[in-house]
């Protein structure tokens, strides 16, 4: 993955506008966070292969970045995005890595289901 280039990512997001796409959305502190620090409240969520259609998409912020996808009855949102990749299948892979390089958030968009 490469550090976010807002123009490239925005262009890729725009290309999926009004198309039926599959989303992988995830946030995580890791399963060991509370083990290493018992005062740490570990929380996370993940949704793989939600099928949505968005009418607009926007990447904002000065880095780490935020991404919002406007869907008919609501929104999809991720913050803390640091890296991107458009992979060989044309999927948009966005991820936020923390100061140690560990994945903390992921938002991925694909025209076919993630395997």
């Amino acid at each position, binding site marked *: 993955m490469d550090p976010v280039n807002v123009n490239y990512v925005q262009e890729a997001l725009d290309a999926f506008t009004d198309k039926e796409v599959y989303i992988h959305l995830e946030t995580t502190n890791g399963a060991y966070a509370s083990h290493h620090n*018992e005062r740490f409240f570990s929380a996370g969520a993940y949704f793989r292969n939600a099928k949505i259609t968005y009418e607009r998409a926007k990447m904002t912020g000065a880095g780490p970045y935020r991404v919002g996808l406007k869907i008919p009855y609501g929104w999809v949102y991720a913050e803390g995005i640091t890296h991107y990749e458009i*992979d060989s299948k044309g999927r948009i*892979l966005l991820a936020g*890595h923390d100061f140690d390089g*560990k994945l903390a958030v992921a938002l*991925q968009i694909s025209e076919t289901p*993630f395997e």
Partner: protein
Amino acid sequence: MEKERQVLVVFPHPDDEAFGVSGTIASHVNMGTPVTYACLTLGEMGRNMGNPPFANRETLPNIRKKELKEAARVLGISDLRMLGYRDKTVEFEDPNKLIAEITAMIDELNPSLVITFYPGYSVHPDHDATGAAVVSAIGKLPAAKRPKLHCVAFSNNCVDELGEADVVHDVSAVADKKFDAIKAHQSQTQLMMAGMAEGLKQQDPEVMARLNYERFWTYKY
């Protein structure tokens, strides 16, 4: 270490075998005992991607599969099985499905020793769910037919509640293989390896103890 007829190791993640059990596995292999390692998932949800990231969510499973195969090769594991579950979802599966799969492996392999995580004392929900399924599978066997069950535990409260481990293996004779097995899981252990290599050079007692000794709690039904 006692010579076993067959060892069956059941863990949910590639690299679960590396830290606490790889020396024990290598020692059994050295004695000529066949070792089967059943690994439930490919660690698809791992957080270590390299820094700068060389992996992403979609490439990580395949990278970890290769690392797992390499670790198995280094340790001399003759039978590596990947059961196709998904990382962080084991506890949500139908437990009877997993218990049945483990029972089938026990029937097929007739192990004299099974190694897994101690349910409730292994921190990651996948570890606890895997250990619980193995405990149930063996518990269903008539007492006389049960293989020995050695559990790995590392929650902060494990010694308080379980007492000290009753099985401690000195694996210093195969420390090099253990080191290589940990190194094989490069995507996950890259950061830690640097510290470990330095600790080895300095003969840091904590690092030496982690490498040279592996501890287990015998599960008592």
